[in-house]
């Protein structure tokens, strides 16, 4: 019971944390791009866009930072047996993340936010790029730590203590699961940031079309938010193609090191060769080995899991008997229902997002986006897709690791804190869920209200000094 609640707590807090992180990574990069464009062109429209989207970024970072703190503490609070066993290896990337990434991100965000009138244009631009670098670095270290749990490398077991000890940091930092997984996460973050920017821009465009602003009509060139919509689409479409490609490559690598994860994602109980990919099924799960397949594409699973037309995918049942021989009695199959559906939710959402992106690019080519009510409405709602995608992807990778907390080294059930009782876990779970729900509601409210506001008007001519006021103040 304590174990289940501790797992729920970690799952809920990390899913919540991972709502904010990809937005931060994606928007930091896009805001930096907007500001660079302003720096080069001196076009005041890009300054307005930079400050507009920079504020959205800042609202998000605050929540990302505090929820990240919870994650860091939780390892020791709920999972002290785990921390004791693997701190030697797992702690290192966490400490590096703090030293190399968090300091950079938070310090330069403060400088960027409050430094509009204190720093030169060039230094101020550098600040936002350093923020973007910080977000990207922090994702690197935490993914290195997580990938070690999926595929432990670069360690030896200490004979005296029986604990794994780090003996090759480069092996940890070049773990193939890390390299591909990290790239996948970065691309997904770009997609998320771009989708948020697209949705906000679309909302603004649709709104302007409905009630043309008095000042807006006289502006030369395309409307302000058509530019940000264009930028977001130009980033979104390639990022999503690459994310799908890298994701499928990651699948091949995980099939090698964590065959259970991939077999469960396809609900493949018996070994197959060649294997078809099931598009949709009814039923299925750990107790139903023969679900009703609605549609299946021949050879596709072989291709996805092994990169070859006729590749073999070992089924869950043979894997289970193999694991029992290797690790002793126990049930080693992850939750098949979660695996199967999170895989599909992720892939299908990505597909929808991709189609929407293509449509948008086509509209841009025809210079008719601002007039397409259908597209603008759909683009606003499509902002939910990347969040669905991110959560499903996270479930796929983490639930697929079960019952292990560190693949082959430690079972999740042995990792909880022995000194923490049920009452404590219930208390903390209640506190965090209540706090996060409140935060999520307030944050969403503020984001939506802010996103619907007009961007600040262009500074009046001759008011040059005023153009550089602080973007945000408390």
């Amino acid at each position, binding site marked *: 019971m304590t174990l289940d609640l501790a797992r729920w707590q970690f799952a809920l807090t990390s899913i919540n944390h991972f709502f904010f992180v990809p937005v931060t990574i994606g928007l930091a990069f896009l805001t930096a791009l907007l500001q660079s464009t302003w720096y080069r062109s001196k076009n005041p429209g890009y300054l307005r866009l930079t400050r507009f989207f920079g504020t959205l970024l800042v609202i998000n970072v605050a929540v990302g930072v505090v929820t990240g703190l919870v994650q860091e503490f939780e390892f020791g609070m709920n999972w002290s047996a785990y921390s004791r066993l693997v701190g030697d290896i797992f702690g290192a990337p966490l400490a590096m993340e703090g030293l190399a990434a968090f300091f950079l991100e938070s310090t330069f965000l403060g400088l960027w936010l409050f430094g509009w009138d204190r720093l030169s244009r060039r230094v101020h631009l550098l600040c936002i790029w350093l923020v973007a670098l910080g977000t990207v670095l922090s994702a690197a270290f935490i993914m290195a730590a997580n990938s070690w749990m999926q595929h432990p490398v670069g360690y030896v077991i200490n004979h005296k203590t029986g604990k794994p000890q780090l003996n090759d940091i480069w092996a940890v930092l070049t773990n193939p699961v890390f390299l591909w997984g990290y790239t996948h996460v970065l691309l997904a973050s770009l997609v998320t940031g771009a989708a948020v920017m697209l949705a906000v821009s679309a909302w603004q465009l649709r709104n302007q079309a409905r009630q043309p602003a008095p000042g807006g009509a006289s502006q030369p060139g395309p409307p302000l938010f058509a530019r940000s919509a264009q930028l977001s689409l130009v980033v979104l479409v390639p990022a999503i193609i690459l994310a799908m490609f890298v994701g499928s490559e990651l699948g091949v690598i995980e099939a090698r090191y964590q065959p259970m994860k991939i077999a469960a994602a396809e609900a493949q109980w018996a070994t197959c060769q060649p294997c078809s990919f099931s598009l949709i099924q009814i039923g299925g799960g750990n107790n139903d080995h023969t679900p009703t397949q609605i549609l299946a594409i021949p050879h596709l699973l072989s291709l996805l899991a092994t990169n070859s037309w006729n590749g073999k995918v070992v089924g869950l049942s043979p894997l289970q008997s193999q694991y029992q021989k290797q690790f002793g009695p126990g049930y080693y199959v992850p939750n098949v229902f979660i695996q199967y559906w999170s895989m599909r939710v992720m892939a299908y959402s990505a597909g929808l997002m991709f189609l929407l992106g293509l449509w948008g690019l086509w509209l841009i080519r025809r210079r008719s986006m601002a007039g397409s009510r259908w597209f603008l409405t759909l683009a606003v709602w499509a902002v939910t897709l990347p969040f669905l995608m991110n959560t499903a992807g996270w479930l796929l990778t983490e639930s697929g690791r079960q019952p292990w907390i560190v693949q082959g080294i430690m079972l999740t059930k042995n990792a909880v804190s022995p000194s923490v009782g049920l009452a404590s876990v219930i208390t903390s779970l209640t506190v965090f869920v209540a706090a996060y729900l409140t935060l999520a509601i*307030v944050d969403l409210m503020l984001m939506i209200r802010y996103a619907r506001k007009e961007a600040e008007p262009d500074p009046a001519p001759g008011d040059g000094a005023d153009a550089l006021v602080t973007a945000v103040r408390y």
Partner: protein
Amino acid sequence: MTLVQFWFIVIALLWTGFFVLEGFDFGVGMLHAGVGRDEAGRRAAVNTIGPLWDGNEVWLVVAAAAMFAAFPDWYATMFSGFYLVLVILLLALIVRGVSFEYRGKSGSPRWRCSWDVLMMAGSLVAPLLIGVALGDLLHGLPIDKAGEYTGNFVTLLQPYALYTGVTLVVLCLLHGATFLALKTTGEMRDRAGRTARRVAPPAALLTAGFAIWTHVTGGKGVLPNPVEVLAILAVLAAAWLVSARREGWAFAATTFAMATAILSMFTELYPRVMVSSTSPAYSLTISNAASGSYALKVMTVVVVIFLPLVLLYQAWTYYVFRQRLSAGDFRPPALLTRQGNGRPPGAGKTGPSGPAARPGPAGPEGPG
């Protein structure tokens, strides 16, 4: 010096850095409403730490992560043992962190007032609880042979630990008041100075008592160690400098007092990291709680490269935001025009160095 000794020092310094830096923004968080009085003053107070607090809080993140990496058993025992304390601490930090961000995002006074109260509560509770936790490390807790904590929540609230918490809260108040006196002008500067003068005598008494009690708790003979002596001297100097209205020196003295107060606990703790009251043999020490030497070497390389870099760019941030702020910078110009005062000083035409008055994108009032 061995690797484990080096890492004990690094962790002591990270905690010290955290309290020296976040200490004053805890103080500002507690004092902003009192020193600020009206809305403009409160915003000025919050803006003195606006660009800084987030970077300061990372010191806590890094201190915890460094404990995880260098002394996994210390991290595991402490964080699972202090479970409920940490739950409340996290809640306090969450509330405080978002209150900076959210308080100005809506025009309604009730909204701002709620966030002000939450900011004060969070800024008070956080140093109190961290103080309790650090005090417990030194005073000792029931820890069994396997290194597991065997007490409960109430066990954590022992007198020395509570006293440590209270001392740190009062030191944060004094530190925050000297910071505000240094970073504001006009009435706010006066009020901050008055607050500092009022807080200084009790802070000096508490801290002197704390240094002595810490020494007694450490159980290493009669004579206080040099760090503890320095802590007493520093806080007395701070009290004198505050009353002499030497703002810069007063802030330097509170910084030094805070640093030595934290360090005196760590000097008494060494070479233990968590004292077991069950049996001295079960205490966690720098040798039995440490990671392997390879991991420590890797981390040493990282910390030697990055920590100086961090100090450098954080120092630069403090240099960039060295100007004083005043409540006048935050009064909306429209309001003043209505009162017939014209534009507030510093608004608009003072060029890039003047703190501009536009209240950010949340406020519709542009100049003129």
